[in-house]
C-alpha cells in the first residue's frame, strides 16, 4: 500500500448534497482555484438524496412566507435555542437557491400559472414545495460539477483533518476503501459536508444498515471536526424520527399531509395537529406509543383512488423507492390499510434537529479555514434546501479564505500518527470483527442514551463507551472494505460519547423527546437558555455554555409556545378551538 500526497486550494469532503454545491460555488467564485470534491462512495449516487428527494421542506418563497416568519417558525420549533443569524442566512438565500436549482433543471411542482405550488405542513407557516419528479437531482448536480470542472475522487474515506501549528486548517487525510492506500490532501480551506451521524443507535430490526439516514453517513465529520478542535453544538438535541416500522424510512407525512393523510393512534383518531417533525411532536408520538393507544399509524385509506395513486407514484419513485416493495411484502395497500409507524433509534443531524458543528452565517466553524454545511452543520432544521444554501455559503467563503491565506506547512507527525492508526486493523490478523464491535456499541447506545434520558444510565453508558475504546485497538480488517467499517466504528464511538456528555451537561429538559431528562423534567430558561458546546480540550471532551446571540427577529409569547401545544386534547374542546386558528 502506498501513500499519496496532493495539494489543492479548497478541499470539499462529502459529495452528497451540500458538498457538490460547495465545490461548484467555490470554483465559480474563483475558477483559478483547484477545488477537489472527495467522496467516500460515488458522487453520482451518494449521500442522503442518492435516489432523489420528494420536496423542499423549508422553502421561503415570496408570497407564501418571509424570511422573518421562517426564522420565527424555526426558533419556536427548536425551543428558542438558535443562532438566528444562521437561520436568517438560510431563509434569505432560500428563494435564490430554488430559482438557481430550477435553472439547472431540478423540477419543482408548479401550479397552472407557473408559480411554485407551495404546501402547508409546519405548525405556523407555509414552507413545503413538492418535487414529484425529484429523482433526478443527483444527475443535475453531477452535470454542474462536470461543467464547472471540479475535480472528483470517489471511494476515499476521510478520517482526520490536518491542522497547522496555529490551529487553522491545513487539509485532510483519507484512505482508499478498495486499495487501502493512504492519501494526504493539503488544502488552504476545507468544507466538511459528511452528513449526519446516522449509524448511532441500533435500529429495532437489529440490522446495522437499516437506518433512516444513508448508513454511509456514520458520523465521520462530527468526529473529524471534534479532533481538529472545532466546537460542536446542540449534540444533546438528538434526531429521533417517526418512521415506517421496521422499514425505518419516512412514510412520509410531509408528502401525504397536504393530500389529506394524517397520523393516528390505534383507534384511527388524530392526536397531533401538525406532522412537522420536532422534539415536541416526537414527545406526543412517544406518549401515544407508551400510553396504550399505540401503535401509531399513517392514515391514507380514506383518500380517493386518484389521490392515493399520486401519493404512491411520489413515494415509490423518490428518496426511498423501496418503500413500495416493503409495503407489498407486508400486504399493505394504502387504500385498505393504515401504515404502522414507529419511533426511530437516535442519531445526530442538524438537517432535522440541531446537532452539529458550530458555524456562523457563512458556514465558517471555529477552526479558521474549516467550513461545514448540510446535516453536519449546526443550522437547526436546515433540511436539503439548507444544505444547498450552506453549501453555497461555505463554498464562497472558502474561496475568499484562500485569497488571503497561504498553504500551511505539512506536519509530518500528524500524517505518521494517522497513517499508523488507519492501517493498524490491516496489520492485526487476530482481532475483533468491526461489525461485531459496531453492533455492541450501537446496542449500548440504545440501552443507555435513547430518551427518556436517565442520568445514571448515561453515566453507565459512558463507562461502556470507554471500554469499547479499548476494543477499537483490537479490531482487525481483512481488506480495505472491512477497514472502512473499522474506522467508522471509531467515529461512531466518538459520537456516542459526545451524545452522552452533552446530554449529561444540560441539566434540564428541552426539545420534547429529543432531550427529555427524567431527573430534570422541566425546562429551565434561567440557567439553560444557552447553547451547549462540546470541544476537545487537553485531549478530552469538554462541554461549556455559549450565550445565545440577541434575537434579530423578536417572538411574542404566543409564538414562543406554539410547538408546546401540538396535542389534540378531546377533553378540552375549548382548548382545541383555541388552537384552530393555527
Amino acid at each position, binding site marked *: 500500500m502506498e501513500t499519496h500526497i496532493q495539494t489543492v486550494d479548497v478541499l470539499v469532503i462529502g459529495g452528497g448534497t451540500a458538498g457538490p454545491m460547495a465545490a461548484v460555488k467555490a470554483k465559480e467564485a474563483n475558477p483559478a482555484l483547484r477545488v477537489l470534491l472527495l467522496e467516500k*462512495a*460515488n458522487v453520482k449516487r451518494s449521500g442522503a438524496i*442518492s435516489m432523489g428527494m420528494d420536496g423542499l421542506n423549508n422553502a421561503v418563497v415570496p408570497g407564501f412566507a418571509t424570511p422573518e416568519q421562517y426564522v420565527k417558525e424555526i426558533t419556536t420549533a427548536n425551543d428558542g435555542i438558535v443562532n438566528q443569524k444562521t437561520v436568517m442566512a438560510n431563509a434569505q438565500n432560500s428563494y435564490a437557491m430554488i430559482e438557481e436549482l430550477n435553472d439547472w433543471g431540478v423540477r419543482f411542482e408548479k401550479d397552472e400559472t407557473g408559480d411554485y405550488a407551495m404546501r402547508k405542513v409546519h405548525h405556523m407557516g407555509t414552507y413545503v414545495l413538492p418535487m414529484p419528479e425529484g429523482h433526478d437531482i443527483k444527475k443535475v448536480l453531477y452535470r454542474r460539477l462536470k461543467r464547472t470542472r471540479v475535480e472528483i475522487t470517489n471511494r476515499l474515506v476521510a478520517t482526520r483533518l490536518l491542522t497547522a501549528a496555529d490551529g487553522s486548517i491545513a487539509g485532510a487525510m483519507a484512505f482508499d476503501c*478498495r486499495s487501502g492506500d493512504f492519501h494526504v490532501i493539503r488544502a488552504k480551506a476545507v468544507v466538511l459536508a459528511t452528513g449526519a451521524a446516522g449509524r448511532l443507535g441500533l435500529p429495532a*430490526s437489529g440490522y446495522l*444498515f437499516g437506518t433512516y439516514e*444513508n448508513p*454511509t453517513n456514520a458520523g465521520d465529520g462530527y468526529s473529524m471536526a471534534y479532533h481538529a478542535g472545532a466546537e460542536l453544538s446542540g449534540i444533546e438535541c438528538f434526531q429521533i424520527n417517526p418512521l415506517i416500522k421496521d422499514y425505518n424510512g419516512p412514510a412520509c407525512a410531509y408528502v401525504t399531509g397536504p393530500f389529506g393523510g394524517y397520523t393516528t393512534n390505534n383507534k384511527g383518531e388524530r392526536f397531533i395537529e401538525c406532522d412537522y417533525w420536532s422534539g415536541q411532536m416526537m414527545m406526543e408520538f412517544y406518549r401515544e406509543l407508551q400510553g396504550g393507544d399505540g401503535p401509531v399509524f399513517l392514515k391514507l385509506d380514506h383518500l380517493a383512488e386518484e389521490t392515493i395513486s399520486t401519493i404512491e407514484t411520489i413515494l415509490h419513485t423518490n428518496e426511498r423507492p*423501496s418503500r413500495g416493495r416493503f409495503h407489498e411484502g407486508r400486504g399493505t395497500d394504502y387504500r385498505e390499510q393504515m401504515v404502522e409507524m414507529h419511533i426511530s433509534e437516535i442519531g445526530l443531524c442538524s438537517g432535522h434537529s440541531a446537532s452539529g458543528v458550530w458555524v456562523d452565517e457563512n458556514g465558517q466553524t471555529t477552526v479558521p479555514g474549516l467550513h461545514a454545511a448540510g446535516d453536519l452543520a449546526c443550522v437547526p432544521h436546515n433540511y436539503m434546501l439548507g444544505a444547498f444554501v450552506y453549501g453555497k455559503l461555505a463554498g464562497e467563503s472558502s474561496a475568499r479564505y484562500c485569497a488571503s491565506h497561504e498553504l500551511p506547512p505539512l506536519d509530518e507527525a500528524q500524517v505518521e500518527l494517522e497513517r499508523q492508526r488507519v492501517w493498524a486493523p490491516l496489520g492485526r490478523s487476530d482481532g475483533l470483527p468491526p461489525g461485531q464491535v459496531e453492533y455492541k456499541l450501537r446496542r449500548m447506545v440504545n440501552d443507555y442514551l435513547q430518551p427518556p434520558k436517565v442520568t445514571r444510565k448515561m453515566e453507565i453508558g459512558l463507562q461502556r463507551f470507554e471500554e469499547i475504546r479499548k476494543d477499537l485497538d483490537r479490531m482487525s480488517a481483512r481488506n480495505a472494505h472491512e477497514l472502512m467499517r473499522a474506522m467508522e466504528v471509531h467515529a461512531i464511538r466518538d459520537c456516542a460519547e459526545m451524545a452522552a456528555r452533552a446530554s449529561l451537561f444540560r441539566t434540564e429538559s428541552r426539545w420534547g423527546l429529543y432531550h427529555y431528562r427524567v431527573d430534570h423534567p422541566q425546562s429551565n430558561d434561567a440557567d439553560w437558555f444557552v447553547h451547549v458546546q462540546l470541544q476537545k480540550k487537553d485531549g478530552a471532551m469538554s462541554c461549556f455554555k455559549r450565550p445565545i446571540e440577541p434575537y434579530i427577529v423578536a417572538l411574542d409569547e404566543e409564538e414562543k409556545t406554539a410547538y408546546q401545544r401540538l396535542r389534540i386534547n378531546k377533553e378540552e374542546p375549548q382548548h382545541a378551538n383555541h388552537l384552530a386558528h393555527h
Partner: protein
Amino acid sequence: MPITSHITSVPVSVDEDKCIAHKGCTVCVDVCPLDVLAIDFIKGKAYMQFDECWYCMPCEKDCPTGAIHVDIPYLLR
C-alpha cells in the same frame, strides 16, 4: 481470537443471464453507496459481497440490462 463465519441471506440478487459484467460493465458496483457489490472475475458476473445494504436501489435502477433485483433485507421484511 477464535472466529467463525456465519451464513446470511443477502437482499441483492443478480440475474446472471442478463448481467454483462464479463463485457466490462461495473455500473452496479460503481453506484452502490456502501460499496457492497463486487464482480466475480471467474464467472464475470456481479454479486453481493457484503450484507450491508440500505435497500436504496441505485444498483437496480442504473443497471443497463435490468439484471439486479433489490429485496428488503430479511430482518426488516
